[in-house]
């Protein structure tokens, strides 16, 4: 049996990779993907803890996180599409100003 700590460590590594992605990526869509990676790292930790404590609360939390992620992606991608229509680019450095 693999101990819970290994799953938590895996979750940590996944989170770190996601963070690297957010820092290095230049396209809005890809930054989004990296954020999803970090969300999933958190989910993995929650599921592992649910098993460790024998408590379904954490699994419920994961379920809600997934729903949130769906909502976030819907809105986020809509924003990206809108921006792309206006600027013909999804490079975040081009968008670092408040002019429309």
């Amino acid at each position, binding site marked *: *049996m*693999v101990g*819970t*700590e*290994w*799953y*938590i*460590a*895996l*979750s*940590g*590594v996944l*989170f*770190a*990779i996601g*963070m*690297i*992605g957010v*820092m*290095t990526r*230049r396209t809005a*869509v*890809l930054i*989004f*993907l990296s954020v*999803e*990676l970090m969300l*999933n790292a958190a*989910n*993995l930790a929650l*599921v*592992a803890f*649910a*098993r*460790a*404590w*024998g408590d*379904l*609360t954490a*699994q*419920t939390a*994961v*379920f*809600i996180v*997934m*729903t949130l992620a*769906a*909502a*976030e*992606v819907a*809105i986020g*991608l*809509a*924003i*990206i*599409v*809108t921006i792309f229509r206006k600027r013909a680019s*999804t*490079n975040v450095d*081009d968008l670092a100003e408040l002019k429309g």
Partner: protein
Amino acid sequence: MSAFFFVVLAVLIITGALVTVIASNAVHAALGLVATLVALAMTYVTLDAHFLGAVQVIVYAGAIMVLFLFVIMLLDATRPVTAHNPVGFVNELAALGGAALAGALGLIALGWRDPRPLAEGAAALRNGTPGAVGETLLTRFVLPFEAVSVLLLVAVVGSIVLVKRPVSQPSAVPEAQPIESGERAGA
């Protein structure tokens, strides 16, 4: 046995994540994330969260990632961005910081011990079937559940409002366009 599964799945997860972060082609990056998500779903199943595993594949890999790919193809964003980095050493910084974070989190995690015997915990989870999760969700957490459903509705409406173009209804009789001014109307 489960150690073997864990190693295989962990390798898959990490590889997929690295592809997501490193691949220059956006579609490849998204596919890496899909691999990670599916491997994560299998990990959930090994962790007695069957329902979450299925939902992970259906919602995350099956719907959200398809949406991502859809947008990537729609915007033709597959080509790598070649713009100049505002901070010259951002990649090195990210790698260093990421490695440090991964190491720190890993060390903290490995120093942690299970609070109670796994067999006992697994019994309480009831395999994480839809019934078990649903019971918890709709009794103790019914308020967050409803709040999330409202949030989803708002997100759907919001994204439609954001993306929808104003539809110009074609009129049955074509209007005469004034052309004396030398400007084309609506161009």
